[in-house]
C-alpha cells in the first residue's frame, strides 16, 4: 500500500490540507502526532487513515514507528512535515529511506534562525545580528548594542511570532534574553527593520526557482508582532518581480536548496531587500487556500509531488488578488458563541470564512499567530477591492465572550 507519513499537523490550515491532498493523490495517509486531543477526537480526521501517538522530538521513536509501518506491508513513498520544527526531521527520515530528492541539510539551516543568519552573514539581505549563549557575558553583549535600538530578540527555533519580541532599551533586552534562555541555550538578537513586509511562497524543482506567490503582509503589534492580513498580488510589475526573483535565487543558492518548497519573509528597506526569516515549508493557516483561490494552484499538493520526485504543475489557472483578513479577540474569556459566519460567507466576493475556536475555548488577545481565531478570504481583479470586501465582511463576525 503506497503510504505517505506526516510528522505533526495542525487541525486546520496548510499542514492539514497536505494530508487531504495526499489522500486525493491516492495514498494511504499516516499521521504521527503528539497531540492527545487529536486521538480523543479521532472522527474529526477522516482523511488520516492511521494515526499514531508518539513523541515527535524522539528521532528513534519516529524511526521505529516507520519500521512498524513497513513491517505491516506499507510502502513508504515519503515522510513529510508541514509544521515547525519537523520539516528537517521528515526530510532526514525520507533520505534514510531513500525515497526523496529533497535534501535535509538546507532545511535544517532554514529551520534554525541562527544557522540562517550565519550562512547569510555579509550578504546584503542580512540585517545586523548577534547571538547570545548561556554562560556568555550579558554585560558585554548589552554594551555592544548601544545605539542599535530598537532590536528584535528571538529564539533560534521561533515560529509564528511565538518567541519574537521587540526591545527598546538595554533593560528590556536583558529581560527578554533571560526569558528566552529559560527555554533554550541560545538567543538571536537582530536589527529591527522598518519597511513594507512581503512574503514569497517559493517552489524549487531540480534547481529551478518558481516564485508562486508574492503577498503583502499587514502586521499589527499587539503584545507581539501578528500578521493580521495577507494580500496575494494577482499582478506584479515585471521589474519588481525580476528584482524579487533575483534576490530569492541568490538566497536559495546560498542554501544549496535544489528541491522543495519554502517561504521567505522580507522587508524592503531603502530599496534593499532584507530577510526577516526563511522557512522550509509553505506558510501555515490560510496560505494554501489563498494561493488556490488566486491562482488555482494547490501548493501543498504540488509540494508533495516534488518530494516524490515528480514534476509539479505550477501553471496558474486564474489570476486574482486575494485578501485574507485574520480575526483576533480583543477580550479574554470563554467563548459562548460566534455569530455572523453565514451572513459573512454570503456576501459578494467572499470565497471562504473560517472560524477556528469551538464553544468553551478560552480566547485572549494574540500572543502568537496561533491566537488568530479565524479568517475571511475575499478575491477580486482589483487589489483594493479584495481588501475592502474581506474587511467589511469580517465586521459581520462577532465573538461572544464571558470574562473569566
Amino acid at each position: 500500500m503506497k503510504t505517505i507519513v506526516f510528522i505533526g499537523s495542525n487541525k486546520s490550515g496548510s499542514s492539514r490540507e497536505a494530508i487531504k491532498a495526499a489522500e486525493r493523490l491516492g495514498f494511504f495517509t499516516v499521521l504521527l502526532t503528539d497531540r492527545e486531543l487529536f486521538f480523543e477526537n479521532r472522527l474529526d480526521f477522516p482523511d488520516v487513515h492511521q494515526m499514531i501517538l508518539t513523541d515527535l522530538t524522539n528521532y528513534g521513536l519516529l524511526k521505529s514507528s516507520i519500521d512498524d509501518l513497513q513491517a505491516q506491508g506499507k510502502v513508504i513513498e515519503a515522510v513529510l512535515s508541514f509544521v515547525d520544527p519537523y520539516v528537517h526531521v521528515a526530510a532526514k527520515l525520507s533520505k534514510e529511506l531513500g525515497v526523496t530528492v529533497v535534501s535535509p541539510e538546507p532545511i535544517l539551516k532554514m529551520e534554525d534562525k541562527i544557522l540562517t543568519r550565519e550562512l547569510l552573514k555579509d550578504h546584503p539581505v542580512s540585517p545586523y545580528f548577534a547571538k547570545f549563549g548561556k554562560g556568555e557575558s550579558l554585560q558585554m553583549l548589552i554594551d555592544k548594542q548601544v545605539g542599535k535600538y530598537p532590536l528584535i530578540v528571538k529564539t533560534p527555533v521561533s515560529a509564528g511570532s511565538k518567541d519574537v519580541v521587540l526591545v527598546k532599551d538595554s533593560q528590556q533586552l536583558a529581560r527578554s534574553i533571560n526569558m528566552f534562555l529559560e527555554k533554550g541555550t541560545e538567543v538571536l538578537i537582530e536589527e529591527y527593520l522598518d519597511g513594507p513586509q512581503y512574503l514569497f511562497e517559493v517552489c524549487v524543482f531540480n534547481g529551478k526557482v518558481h516564485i508562486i506567490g508574492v503577498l503583502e503582509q499587514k502586521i499589527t503589534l499587539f503584545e507581539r508582532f501578528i500578521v493580521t492580513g495577507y494580500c496575494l498580488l494577482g499582478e506584479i510589475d515585471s521589474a519588481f518581480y525580476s528584482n524579487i526573483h533575483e534576490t530569492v535565487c541568490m538566497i536559495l543558492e546560498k542554501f544549496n536548496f535544489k528541491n522543495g518548497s519554502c517561504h521567505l519573509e522580507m522587508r524592503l528597506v531603502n530599496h534593499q531587500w532584507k530577510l526577516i526569516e526563511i522557512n522550509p515549508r509553505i506558510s501555515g493557516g490560510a496560505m494554501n487556500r489563498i494561493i488556490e483561490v488566486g491562482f488555482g494552484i494547490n501548493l501543498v499538493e504540488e509540494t508533495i509531488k516534488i518530494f516524490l520526485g515528480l514534476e509539479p504543475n505550477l501553471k496558474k489557472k486564474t489570476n486574482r488578488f486575494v485578501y485574507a483578513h485574520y480575526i483576533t479577540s480583543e477580550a479574554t474569556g470563554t467563548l459562548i458563541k460566534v455569530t455572523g459566519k453565514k451572513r459573512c460567507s454570503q456576501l459578494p466576493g467572499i470565497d471562504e470564512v473560517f472560524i477556528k475556536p469551538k464553544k468553551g475555548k478560552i480566547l485572549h488577545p494574540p500572543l502568537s499567530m496561533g491566537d488568530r481565531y479565524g479568517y475571511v478570504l475575499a478575491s477580486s481583479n482589483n487589489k483594493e477591492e479584495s481588501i475592502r470586501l474581506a474587511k467589511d465582511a469580517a465586521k459581520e463576525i462577532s465573538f461572544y465572550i464571558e470574562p473569566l
Partner: protein
Amino acid sequence: MNEEQKTMKEDESVCDVKSILKTIFETQNKAKLPAFQGIFPETIPFILYSSETIEPFFAYGIAPKSLVSFRTCFFCIDSLTSSCVHLTLLLPSDVEGSYLDTTCMPFRLKKMNCTVIVSLQDFCGIQCVSPKLVNRKVIISGGKC
C-alpha cells in the same frame, strides 16, 4: 397512596422546601458579611414546583425599561416567614440579552424590581440554579459595534 399518606407526603415536601429556602436565605445573608464576601453568592436563584401541577411555578412582571410584560419561573429569596416567602423575580435572557420564556437554563438571569409573596403550602419542590447565571456578563468582540 391513601389520603392520609398523601397529606403526610405533601407536608414533608413543604418542610423540605421551607428548610432549603431557609438555608438559601441564610447563605445569602452570610454573603453580605465582609468575612464571606466573594465566597458565598449574594443571590441564589431557584425554581419552585407547584403542589397542584408538579410543574414550575410562574410569576408575571413588567420589565422596567421596555415596560413589556414577562413571566418567569426563576426567583431569588427576599425574606421568609413561617408560612410565606417573599420572592424577587429574575428575568431569563439569552446571550444577546433578549428575554426567554423558558424553563430551561437561560444564559443570564437579571434581578428585577418585581416581587411576589407566596404561601409555602403551594409548593412541593425546589430546584437551585447556578448563581453564576445572575447578572452574567458577556463581551462582544469584533462585529459592527
